[in-house]
């Protein structure tokens, strides 16, 4: 026995030598991702997190060709309004959004579901940046830049959440808006009131404006102080805080003239001098068919050209005077073809043949002129309002001159707003804040029953509110089925 043990011992040793792996054998790390704690060690890392968040504003989501970030929700908000006509059913994208039936669905893949996920993803990434950037090593000015951008993005996201999941601010201040988070968490929260959400938006924008003051932005997709003021003006207009709206819009547009008539017809796919904020999308980062231009540009093979052409209503088209350059970005009635029918838009077209590279507009100076003019008019400062309005519209139509006063002036500004910003995502929120019911013109050249289905709906009709995704209600202990929008 002893002998056996003696013979066995070197063997046992050999087996042991063979059989222990290196201590770190089981440590693996991905190459497509990086550990969270690595990201915020330096400001360079924090910049990576910031740029990723901007990128997430245009990537497609949920495998759906109708979801491509902010511009898909902008398009939805326009389709809910009165001024865009879908030509035919085509590949069926956005038809439910257009006939107002899409918002009844609370599934994760629905319009409501993916919009909810989109905005809260932005907020979560912004919250992580805000919570961690101060601890990063690096230049304090860079930290301010990063934090200012994150705060503004958070405010921007809450602005749309509050407006899509609840009626407009004025008159609904105490109504439930959406859960409000200002730091990273996994604990769900209840719906904060509209007022609470707006308080946060205003606070974030105020802080962002301070942090970004005097800083040069690194890229058109980032926010500078002017763009933050632009968001502030947009928010103030929605809150019917006209003094702030006028002041911030004016500050925001300083040094920015309306683009030229030539630039207006260049397709809105390439940032120009008037752009205050936009997403630059190179060909290799484009989302091809699942993109804004796929749904708008019918000149190329796209969803738009395959039946889903986006047309202006005859009703609005007829209100654009001859000689106004903005009339030229729609197909003149009688000259349409099967691919580019009468009234079809050519405002948004891909800038380069054979490429999906095209930038997304998020804010431009014309909107500031329109906000300022409207706010001044509503404050009773009609002369200045006319001046600001003329400064813009005369760049489109040299013969133009606004002379109206009172509510006529306000209505004229709102009309110019519909014309100037057609297709840029403002319809729904304008109808909401002005308490104007949806009333879609019918007849030839206008909305057709087969697709539009709905011609009239009160703007405070609860069916216009988007649904909280059912999965959110299921997973969030602070929300009950009764918290769902009616």
């Amino acid at each position: 026995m002893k002998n056996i043990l003696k013979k066995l011992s070197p063997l046992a040793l050999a087996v042991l030598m063979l059989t222990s792996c290196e201590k770190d054998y089981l440590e693996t790390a991905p190459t497509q991702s990086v550990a969270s704690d690595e990201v915020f060690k330096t400001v360079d890392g924090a910049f990576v997190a910031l740029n990723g968040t901007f990128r997430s504003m245009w990537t497609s989501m949920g495998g759906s060709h109708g979801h491509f970030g902010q511009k898909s929700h902008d398009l939805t908000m326009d389709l809910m309004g009165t001024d865009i006509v879908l030509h035919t059913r085509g590949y069926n994208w956005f038809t439910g959004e257009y006939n107002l039936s899409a918002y009844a669905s609370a599934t994760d893949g629905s319009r409501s579901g993916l919009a909810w996920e989109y905005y809260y993803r932005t907020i979560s990434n912004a919250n992580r940046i805000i919570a961690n950037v101060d601890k990063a090593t690096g230049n304090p000015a860079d930290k301010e830049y990063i934090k200012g951008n994150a705060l503004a993005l958070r405010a921007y996201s809450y602005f749309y959440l509050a407006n899509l999941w609840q009626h407009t601010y004025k008159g609904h201040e105490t109504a439930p808006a959406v859960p409000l988070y200002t730091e990273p968490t996994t604990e769900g929260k209840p719906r904060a009131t509209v007022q609470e959400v707006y308080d946060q938006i205003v606070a974030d924008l105020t802080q962002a404006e301070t942090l970004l003051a005097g800083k040069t932005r690194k890229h058109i997709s980032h926010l500078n102080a002017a763009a933050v003021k632009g968001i502030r003006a947009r928010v103030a207009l929605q809150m019917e805080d006209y003094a702030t709206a006028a002041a911030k819009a004016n500050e925001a547009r300083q040094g920015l003239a309306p683009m030229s008539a030539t630039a207006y017809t260049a397709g809105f796919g390439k940032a120009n001098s008037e752009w205050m904020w936009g997403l630059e999308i190179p060909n290799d980062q484009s989302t091809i068919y699942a993109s804004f231009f796929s749904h708008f540009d019918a000149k190329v093979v796209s969803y738009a050209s395959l039946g889903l052409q986006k047309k202006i209503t005859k009703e609005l088209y007829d209100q654009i005077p001859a000689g106004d350059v903005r009339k030229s970005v729609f197909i003149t009635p009688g000259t349409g073809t099967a691919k580019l029918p009468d009234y079809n838009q050519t405002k948004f077209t891909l800038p380069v043949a054979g490429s999906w590279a095209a930038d997304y507009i998020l804010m431009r100076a014309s909107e500031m002129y329109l906000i300022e003019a409207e706010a001044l008019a509503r404050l009773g400062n009609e002369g200045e309002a006319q001046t600001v309005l003329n400064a813009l519209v005369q760049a489109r139509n040299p013969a133009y001159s606004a002379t109206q006063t009172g509510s006529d002036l306000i209505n004229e500004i709102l009309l110019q707003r519909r014309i100037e910003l057609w297709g840029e995502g403002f319809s729904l929120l304008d109808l909401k804040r002005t308490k104007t019911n949806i009333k879609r013109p019918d007849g030839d050249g206008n909305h057709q029953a087969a697709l539009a289905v709905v011609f009239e709906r009160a703007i405070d009709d609860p069916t216009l509110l988007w649904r909280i995704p059912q999965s959110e209600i299921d997973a969030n202990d602070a929300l009950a089925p009764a918290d769902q929008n009616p």
Partner: protein
Amino acid sequence: MNLALLLLLVNQAWAQSRTITGKVTDAASGQPLPGVAVIVKGTTAGTATGVDGSYSLNVPEKGNTLVFRYIGYETKEQAIGSASTVNVALGVNSEQLSEVVVQVPYGSVAKTAFTGSEATISSSAIQKQQVTSVTRVLEGLVPGLQTTNGGGAPGSSASVRIRGIGSINASSDPLYVVDGVPFDGTYSSISTDDIEAVTVLKDAAASALYGARAANGVIMITTKKGGKGKPRVAVNFRKGVSERGIPEYDRVNSQEYYELMWEAMRNSYAASTNPATKLPYTPAEAAAAASKNIAGPNGLVYNPFNVAGDQVIDPATGKLNPSARLLYEDNWSDVLFQDATRNDLNVSISGGAENSDYYISAGYINEDGIAKFSDYDRFNSRVKLNTAVSKAVKAGMNISATLSNSNGNFADGTATANPFYFSRYMGPIYPVWQRDGEGAFVIDPATGERALDWGVPGQMGSRPYAGNSNLLGSLGLDERSTRRSEATANAYLEAKFLKNFTFKTTLGGNYYNGLGTTFQNSLFGDAANVAGRSTKSDTRQISYTFNQVLSWNKQFGSHSISALAGHENYSLESRFMSATRTGFPFPGTSELAPAATAGASTSYTDEHKLEGFFSQVSYSFADKYLLSGSFRRDGSSRFFTDSRWGNFYSIGAGWRISEENFFNAEWVDELKLKGSYGEQGNEDVENYYAWQGLYGLGWNNVNAPGSIVSSLPNTNLQWEKNASFNVGADFSLFNKVQGTIEYFERTSDNLLFEVPLPTSTGIKSIWDNVGTMKNYGWEAQLGYNAISTSDFDWRVDLNLTSYKNKITKLPQEEIVNGTKKLMVGHSVYDFWLREYAGVDPANGDALYYKDVLDADGEPTGERTTTNVYNEGTYYYHGSAIPKLVGGVTNAFRYKGLDLSVLLTFQSGGKFYDANYANLMHRGSYGTHWSKDILNRWQSEENPGDGKTPRLQNGISGQDGASTRWLFDASYLTVKNINIGYTLPKSLTGKLGGATLRVFGAVDNAVILTKNEGMDPQRSFNGTSDYTYPIYRTATVGLNANF
């Protein structure tokens, strides 16, 4: 590593056991018998004979009798004495338990000594079916096992579940092990002609030694090996032709389609306001408007009739204009699908000398798809070599290499480029080829041939279904292919030393390389405006398993003990790279070099590692009382350092009552009771870095690198545990009946769960160990030798399985997932749907059941109906899990003629047929309709079948997922018919002792389901998709052995 040192040690330690070789033949014919179990009596040591009937076996010191067992033959015991060669001839008898040696982790044991649950399929059963992937032969042959049919894509594989659904978010797939090494390649890369046996290990006692990855059972594939003696050549040739196994849904014709669409349009007008009158459309106005617009741009666009578009339908009757004649009707299925050929040739040479044996094989398969432009071809080869260096030392290698190529990896889902989706739902009025106003073909001036119709404004109009596409045109110009090169290389070294010790080390590697191409052509379709788009992707995966096992066997009188201990590590490295470019100057190539514009490109590497230590002890007393136990400890790279190690174990016991002296029931040949319990692990989630908190890279903003948060950390994340209990009996009765009956209970605990988080927190889920789920049920396998004479045999094999799945703990009260809802007390595949209440006879609305609520909002128990879909109440409606699955094989032999028929079936279970639902729409212009739409509600006088609501284009709020589309999933399949004739010796004698068998076979001969077109065996969870349907293959072939 230190192999040299080990060899020296081994040579010092002189082996006490001895090696016995020999050959087993058929006593009547003298033909060698492959697959005969050779067991050292009183021990668990055993082996099986090779294709030439020879074997080589290490016999422990005390062993002095060999037992030879083979199905259909008498068992024979042969004393060894001092002989080193023991040849035996077995006489035919049909009184044996089937398959007597069981392949188990790190070795093999006699079935009678085995305390676990397993089932073995022999090569003869495998070769009856003409399949490319071995996963497709398992259905109906193994109790406890449930499979999908794997669809019809050439070269594709079936999915397998052993004893229920093991996990919710982690994998429920079994572990595949080829010749003792976990397999990472594609299943169809293994030639079925190289397979000697497939052993399915089902309970903890059987598979716990593979603890880390065996929670869902193990499928062990053993390849053939050579035997002693002169070279033997086996040739297998098969030629077959395939067609659709599941018919297309029966759909309406062009005339019906136009009338129905008119009705849908008329009803749409009737439900809206007439802008001219500002009043609702009157019935006459609605009919007139529909007749005017049905062929227009907001209607069907195309008009295949010889009258003007507004004249096709008579508004007064809603019927086709009597003078309207159909000008054309093309059939998309006919042009996109084909009868497909299949050729399969495999040749092997095997043999051995005194100290070595070898098996080499090569084969070629060419399999066309039943959809045009899809095919699979494969060249495979294998070399298996074993050699004895000395009496104590053996070494061997097993190398296989496969080259395969798949074409037609079609897009799936609702992508236009998916030919199954495209052809099923394309309205019948839309032609393949462009027509002029008279219905004549339009000639393409460029080619001089008929122009295809792409459904674009420049041709016949903007086709409302799948515009800008024509798959007959584009699929031939596109390329969607994968070129694979795969290899496995297993090498082992085995040494015996001291008394009864064996040390074996095995290094097994898998190599996979797949080059994928997705090319959309530059001329037509999706990528025409960017002049073609090509994506090339390269996946290169290398994995290896390295183990060292020390085993020990000892006899003390009637006691027999065996023990083993070992270590194993596994490593996988997967590299992926892809690049896309657009802008091709010329057609004809998918390579990136000529393309002008860069698209997205990426590359990344993933790693996965496991390490384990294991041991096992088996004890038997007088072959009567059997005990076994095992323990294994595994670590996984998927978990954090402090939580990554899991402990797994099993215990098993068996009692062979029939060996007891007091047991004297003459009619019982063998009776063994067995039971086992153990715990195994599962770490197989799709994410290799499940515990880590990560930021996903590649979210670049133009030229600035970008990243967003992608997962949250969980350092406590650990193994999912699967506790498995098994009790059963193996028996053999009346010299006629053999069988096994078992009850099992599997409890998956600490489920690896993607626990839902509120989406508003920004991340939708976090991996955690929450939840418990049980699978429990019984299974039976029975074999009956009904007739057994020298000229005529008839054998019946039956297996049945029934199990239930029940969730017993969840992270939140309920989780809704598509058509299912997870909830404690329900199964993982319980349908949660609104309940369809049929049609309102007054107006043709679809109705749904709705709970009546009391003042507190609680259901009163009463129900009413609603025509608002969203108001319908959700209820549970049964499970996709069947009540019973099984298979029956009938095998006959009359002299040289043999026939076998395999039936498989499922009884119970539900199937949600969304394919059918989409053919029953309310009137989407352009989309096809099932014939069942003819039974729609039309009026109070003509209410249809009461299930099909009225047509109305654009109707909203009425339709959605409901029990209307939920059907009984029961099916019966004649899975395989194989009829063969073995040429008599008098004919083949001249060929030098060759045996020749010619055969004909039909796979998936008949598939009977509750509804035509439905394919309930598509998935385990009872939902349909738009994928490749299963095919039926008729084959003729030849098996020759020289």
